[in-house]
């Protein structure tokens, strides 16, 4: 299905407001056209020496137009905000089902945030594209009626009108779709160049490559500007054509007037002026449509990708035990990709404390993804409390295995709400206990807002180490028997990391602990340590 249609269907769940907005918009447009026509008529009649038409009618139309325009704007925005809310929730659910495994475990917060921009692009679809287009469609019968009253030949004027209102926007949409693709690629390549220059700033400085990197960025920027320039030139050309054709249409109406009734012709010219003014924005709307279509395609694709691991049709009951066992598990991302590991076996008895060490990029995180049912083993099976996890519902399993990884996110929200994500039913005493366990109680109670202090944007800022410990408090609040940590301190300095693990040791006594790390800091309390190299686990000296 056309992705734009998919979005429109989502809006249609809320038809009342959209319909009202449409109605008001058309009505406002009609009064605008009538106002111009009436003014012309009055003037023409006065010149021709006819009777004085009541200017009161004119005043009424003028007032109605102003009031209707205001109502149209307010109702239109109300409608689109409602529709947007619908789309946001729909997209959130879709992403939550499909992308947590694919996108979430990797560092892709920015890619996700860009999707949010796409959603925002979609609100222009209704206000700036559909409403004016429907208005133009409605104007056609109005014009037919008004023009045939004057002279049959006057219908000729409809040709330039339709050309401006429908043909040029269609051309613009097609040009924009091509151009937007090109500009999008150029944008991505610029982003890569900038990211490379900043991420590798150390190398850049040491190899005296500042000039080279800046030149590279400028070259990519020039490509982007060239693609955008092409699009802007196309838009300017189409606008100019639309303008010339519209004015030509007005001239045609005047010429036709010489064959028909002069008074009506004057009115018709002014009507056309208003009508063309209403559709002159449409070529630009066409350009916008081309871009919105691309955005809609990305949003629909991301939101409807489907879950990575199918849920069991008849789920088994959750076992009472919490031991985890990998039995001859093999995994690769696709049939044509190399194995991440083959025939991997690993026992995590209840109450044990195990670590798997290995260089980054070796596939350690895949072990966590498989355990949490974010990915499916290609061969072998994973047992939780003796039951194959393929038969267990993912949500219930994740309540037993609390996960804390490098991508675990602290939300721009209050400290309380961040903690409640772990246990929505927790009372204040429980929250303070959790903060005490990670040695943050003093820090939080010193904040003016206490538990209700805001984190991030416009709120309290916590240091990297405090942030990780806060995330740990949330993980502890889940009160799960198994705790799974995947590089929880990535990006922090060694001293902070040690401090984190000292707190962690005492806070997780008695639980089954599974750590995935690239190296130990030396303070972790562990029973067994495995080294993950070349897709196999080797016992390492503790």
């Amino acid at each position, binding site marked *: 299905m056309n992705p734009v249609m998919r979005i429109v269907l989502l809006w249609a769940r809320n038809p009342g407001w959209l319909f009202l907005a449409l109605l008001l918009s058309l009505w406002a447009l009609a009064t605008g056209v009538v106002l111009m026509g009436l003014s012309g008529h009055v*003037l023409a009649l006065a*010149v021709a020496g006819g009777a004085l038409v009541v*200017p009161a009618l004119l005043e009424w139309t003028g007032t109605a137009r102003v009031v209707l325009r205001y109502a149209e704007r307010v109702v239109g925005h109300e409608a689109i905000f409602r529709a947007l809310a619908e789309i946001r929730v729909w997209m959130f659910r879709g992403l*939550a089902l499909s992308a947590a495994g694919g996108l979430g475990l990797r560092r892709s*917060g920015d890619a996700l945030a860009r999707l949010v921009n796409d959603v925002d692009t979609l609100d222009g679809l209704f206000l700036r594209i559909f409403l004016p287009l429907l208005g133009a469609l409605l104007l056609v019968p109005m014009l037919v009626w008004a023009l045939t009253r004057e002279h049959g030949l006057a219908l000729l004027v409809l040709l330039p009108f339709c050309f401006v209102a429908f043909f040029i926007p269609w051309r613009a949409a097609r040009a924009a779709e091509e151009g937007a693709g090109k500009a999008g690629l150029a*944008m991505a390549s610029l982003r890569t160049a900038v990211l490379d220059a900043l991420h590798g700033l150390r*190398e850049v400085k040491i190899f005296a490559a500042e000039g080279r990197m800046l030149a590279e960025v400028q070259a990519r920027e020039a490509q982007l500007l060239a693609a955008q320039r092409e699009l802007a030139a196309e838009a300017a050309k189409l606008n100019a054509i639309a303008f010339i054709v519209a004015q030509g249409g007005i001239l045609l109406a*005047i010429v036709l007037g010489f064959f028909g009734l002069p008074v009506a012709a004057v009115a018709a010219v002014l009507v056309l002026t208003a009508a063309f003014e209403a559709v002159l924005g449409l070529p630009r709307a066409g350009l916008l449509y081309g871009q919105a279509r691309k955005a809609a395609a990305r949003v629909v694709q991301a939101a409807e990708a489907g879950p990575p691991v199918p849920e069991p049709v008849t789920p088994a009951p959750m076992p009472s035990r919490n031991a985890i066992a990998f039995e001859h598990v093999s995994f690769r991302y696709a049939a044509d990709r190399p194995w991440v590991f083959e025939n991997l076996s690993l026992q995590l008895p209840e109450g044990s404390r195990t670590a798997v060490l290995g260089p980054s990029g070796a596939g350690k995180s895949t072990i966590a993804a498989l355990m949490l049912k974010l990915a499916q083993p290609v061969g072998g099976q994973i047992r939780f409390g003796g039951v194959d996890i393929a038969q267990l519902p993912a949500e219930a399993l994740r309540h037993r295995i609390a996960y804390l990884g490098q991508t675990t*996110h602290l939300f721009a929200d209050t400290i309380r709400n961040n903690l409640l994500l772990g246990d929505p039913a927790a009372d204040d005493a429980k929250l303070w206990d959790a903060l005490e366990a990670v040695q943050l109680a003093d820090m939080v109670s010193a904040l003016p807002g206490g538990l209700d202090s805001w984190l991030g944007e416009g709120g309290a800022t916590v240091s990297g180490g405090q942030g990780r410990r806060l995330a740990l408090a949330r993980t502890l609040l889940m009160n799960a028997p198994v705790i799974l940590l995947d590089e929880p301190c990535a990006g922090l300095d060694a001293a902070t990391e040690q401090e984190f693990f000292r707190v962690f040791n005492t806070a997780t006594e008695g639980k089954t602990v599974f750590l995935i790390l690239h190296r130990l800091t030396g303070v972790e309390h562990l029973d067994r340590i495995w080294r993950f190299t070349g897709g196999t686990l080797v016992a390492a000296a503790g």
Partner: protein
Amino acid sequence: MSKAAKPWIKSEQKSGFRAARLSLLLSSAGIAFGVVQAGAAARLLAALLHVQQGGLAVWGSAAVFICAVLVRAWLQVRAERGNFELGAAARRRLRGQVLGVLMALGPAGLRGRHSAELAATAVDRVEAMDGFHARWVPATGLAIIGPALIGLVALLTDWRSGLILVIAGLCVPFAMAVAGIGAGIAAKKQFLAMTRLQVRFVDRIRGISSIVLAGRMEDEAKALATAAKELRERTMRVLRVAFLSSTALDLAAAAALVLIVIRFVPVLRGAHELAPTALFLVLLVPEFFAPLRGFAAVYGDRMAVEAVAEEFQALPEAPPPVPPVHIRSVAAHGVTLAFEHVTFAWDEARPVLENLSLKVGRGEMLLLTGASGAGKSTVIDLILGFLAPRSGRITINGATLEDLVPAARTRMLGWIGQKPVIFAGTIEENIRFANPAASEDELQDAIRNAHLEELIASLPQGIKTPLGEGGFGVSGGQAQRIAIARAFLKDAPLLLLDEPTSHLDPAVERDILESLKHLSAGRTVVLATHSSQAMEIAKTVGAKRIDLDALRYASWRGVVA
């Protein structure tokens, strides 16, 4: 909006208007031709009503009409393209500025900042300034010039109608200001709540995996719906006031039109010579209000700037340029490195290095050990010049580091860290990064010395295989080999090795250490590590060892190191 952002916006505005002069001239000419066109149209209409001579005059008016339309279309295209260039030039300038500052600050200056966030500022935030320079500035200029021009023409044609138009026009900015102030007050009340609600959605999407893994998807979806509802209600409260400014515009336009018609209807009877004037003035009404409408339409572009300004203000200050005096150069071959009573601290309370003195002779190796956080990387960053000592001095061949020509200093230094950055590009480009001017022979030597032949042979496109973002992934050991090849190609006399094997498997580590030993031959080397294998290797070349933990312990005890 913070206070610091305001002057920044002011200066952007000033430079924007200066750059837009030509574009404004073109648009103003377009408006002038619009007046000519309206005049011709009025004459044609009057002829149609038989109040004027037909014949030649009609043809003349039609010709003027057609010419005016064509010239206007051409001017419009020129102005639109010119406006695009305004935005493009501004973006180029701002991006250059941001990247220039970030590059000058270097890795130590950007400590604690996420490179992805900084990249977003340099890419997306700069893009957001396009609307300001390409649309808002020209539209604002035109909203003043256009109505003034047309108002003047109307006044000269018929002073009563002109007055109606001018008064209606003056009401618009007044009403806009009143509504704007109202909306501003409403927005101020809602601002914090609105920002938080807007941020909420982006933030929840960013952290979606945390929500899913905590099993809280349904609750959050519901909370999101509630938040969206609240955002809608608050935004509408602001918009209902803000839309009044557009309504003022509509009201003024409709009132002007109706009043002009009413003004002419009684006098037109029996005074047919007035007909073209009346029609002309009616046709001028839409032209008069069009620039004001254009201005109202770009309101959003102006609002977007505030957020960008905040972010630009939050960027760190550029370091002062290196003073040109005292600069000296030293022989670039055979380097002796010395620290004389060097102290460094991020903050006064916790010094990282205290009174450190050391000396590494030409071709010698210094082994730097100590627990993580003891200051090994700080020593390396001090030598690299990314950090400056609080007191004491660092010398290379007797010359203080700060007095060296920066380019000459960079040429003397080689460095290999824990995890080399692999750039988006081919493996050849990644190696040549160290020295783009290297000859083919030098490149092959570097590849051989770093034992990269095997890897290159196994890659699908050999040395031209793309790596990095969107390319072929390399393992930690392979990446380190590329870093070694870079170091061979750069051939610097002073080599700094900062935990070069801490991310590697023991088997790979041995191999890499052998290559590093080979690389170290004939160079002055500082090796910071806590790997026992690396220490063994250092011992075999007779390295001196400094243990930073022991030094600190000694200084606590009052022993001078």
